[in-house]
């Protein structure tokens, strides 16, 4: 593995405390765009992971009930490329809250209305997280591809008119001292595109997959050691409270599905075993906490 740099066998081991968050790689690695910073290099032709069917998802949902899973997350690839997506959301929202991580481009007015109907029919929250990586067309499209900004903003607008407050999820690709300028830029842009109360979530970049090629990847000292974990709150690691189901079984976390060792089994039960924090991406989780979860779920794991 490219991101494995340690050679000695004393990786810190982490155990699943409780399965609070169940993720689904519902669109596999298939996406309608090819972002320059994608940590699992999704694209229209990357079939490493295939779409999950309604039945596959539902089996895991059923298994999740007795385990007391608190939140369900759907990612890809682009989840709305999955033809079963609406049916999957309907079923999920019978059981608990759902969050979809999308690029927003496929959320045309009819689909936004359908999402509203599904959301209105449930007592639980349906969160839509739309990834946008620049507050100008140029800044965004440089990373996410030509024409993406306009379509994503249309998706956001369609969600907003249907009573959603999408969480705009931004991967940080700028310098520390530009934080204020970028945040203000995003807020102003979103307001001017018909989203008066924008919600933002800033993520650090994960320097694997295509992002490793775009930047220089991790430095060789960036990994987690036993010494770093003395008095450390282990629930900061997403793998202390989460697993991700895919078309090829259950993996330890959404970031590491390209690593065969992160496949922990075919059922949630099998995937409840511990895991060694041997990947450099674990270092990002160590630094920033469980970055993948929603803000509303913090307190438990961030």
């Amino acid at each position, binding site marked *: 593995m490219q991101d494995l740099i340690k050679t000695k066998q004393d990786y810190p081991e982490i155990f699943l405390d409780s399965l609070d968050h169940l993720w689904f790689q519902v669109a596999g690695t298939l996406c309608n765009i090819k972002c320059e910073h994608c940590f699992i290099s999704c694209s229209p032709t990357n079939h490493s992971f295939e779409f999950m069917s309604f039945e596959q998802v539902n089996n895991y949902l059923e298994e999740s009930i007795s385990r007391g899973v608190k939140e369900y997350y759907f990612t890809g690839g682009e989840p709305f490329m999955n033809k079963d997506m609406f049916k999957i959301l309907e079923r999920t929202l019978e*059981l608990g809250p759902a969050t979809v991580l999308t690029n927003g481009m496929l959320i045309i007015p009819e689909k936004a209305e359908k999402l509203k109907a599904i959301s209105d029919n449930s007592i639980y929250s349906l969160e839509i997280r739309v990834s946008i990586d620049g507050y100008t067309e140029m800044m965004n499209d440089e990373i996410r591809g030509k024409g993406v900004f306009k379509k994503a903003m249309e998706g956001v607008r369609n969600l907003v008119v249907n009573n959603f407050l999408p969480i705009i999820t931004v991967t940080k690709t700028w310098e520390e001292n530009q934080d204020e300028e970028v945040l203000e830029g995003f807020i102003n842009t979103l307001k001017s595109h018909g989203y008066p109360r924008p919600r933002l979530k800033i993520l650090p970049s994960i320097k694997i997959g295509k992002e490793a090629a775009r930047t220089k990847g991790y430095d060789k000292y960036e990994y987690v050691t036993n010494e770093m974990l003395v008095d450390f709150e282990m629930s900061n690691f997403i793998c202390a409270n989460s697993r991700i189901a895919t078309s090829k079984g259950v993996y330890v976390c959404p970031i590491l599905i390209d690593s065969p060792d992160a496949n922990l089994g075919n059922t949630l039960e099998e995937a409840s075993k511990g895991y060694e924090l041997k990947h450099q991406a674990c270092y990002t989780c160590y630094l920033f906490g469980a970055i993948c979860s929603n803000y*509303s779920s913090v*307190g438990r794991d961030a």
Partner: protein
Amino acid sequence: MLKKVALIGGVYSNHIALKKTVEDAKQKGVDAIYCMGDLGAFGPNPDKVFPILIDNKIPVVQGNYDNSISNGLDDCQCGYTDPRDNYFAKLSYDYTFRKTNDVFKLWMKHLPTEIRFELGNYKVLLSHGSPRQMNEFLWETTTPTHFLEKLCADYNADIICATHTGIHWERKFKDDKYFVNVGVIGRPENDGNTFVGYTILELENDFVNAKYIPVEYDHHALAKEMKEEKLPEQFIETILSGWWTTCLEVLPAKERIKGKF
């Protein structure tokens, strides 16, 4: 035997509402009053809260704020991750820490993290955030029923009560189990109303029901005191308008859309 108890959620230094709430609960003839933590934060002059609780012999569950203040931690453990939320949380935390007497800090340090009692045949468990973690948010729209069932089983309780989120809700589920978020009396519920509220849990004909009791209090007096203490205008606006202006990013979609900001 207990039949009717008052459960008071986050106080957030709102001593005016606390006094009013205790009077109201007594007037309604409760057998006991419990407070579920987060005594400081947000409001003015935290030291005014403690005598009301101590003089009335009100058992208190330790909240994350109380745990932080009494142990001299760097922040309130409120679980905010948004920079703006953290900015306001820090202002409030530093103020509360500075204005809390050491004697009260010591008193808070030894508060229990849970209180258990029986209401008829029902085993009631009071916690601040959740039984498993003091600062866990249990919002109505992000807490599945099967999750609550597991909590009841894991913690051997029939009725679990919590506060922490700032918005009251309740759900009954199978085998006569019950979850109740009792609300808070520290600030209004982000619905444009200025009142706050607490919960009465009452045993009636062998069933327990939770009733949320709105409490009108002199919120203008509180706002005046907050102004004198130079607390942020945004906090005062919440007290006067009933809308949350800060620490909004932790709200799930459905709770957030109901608010103004």
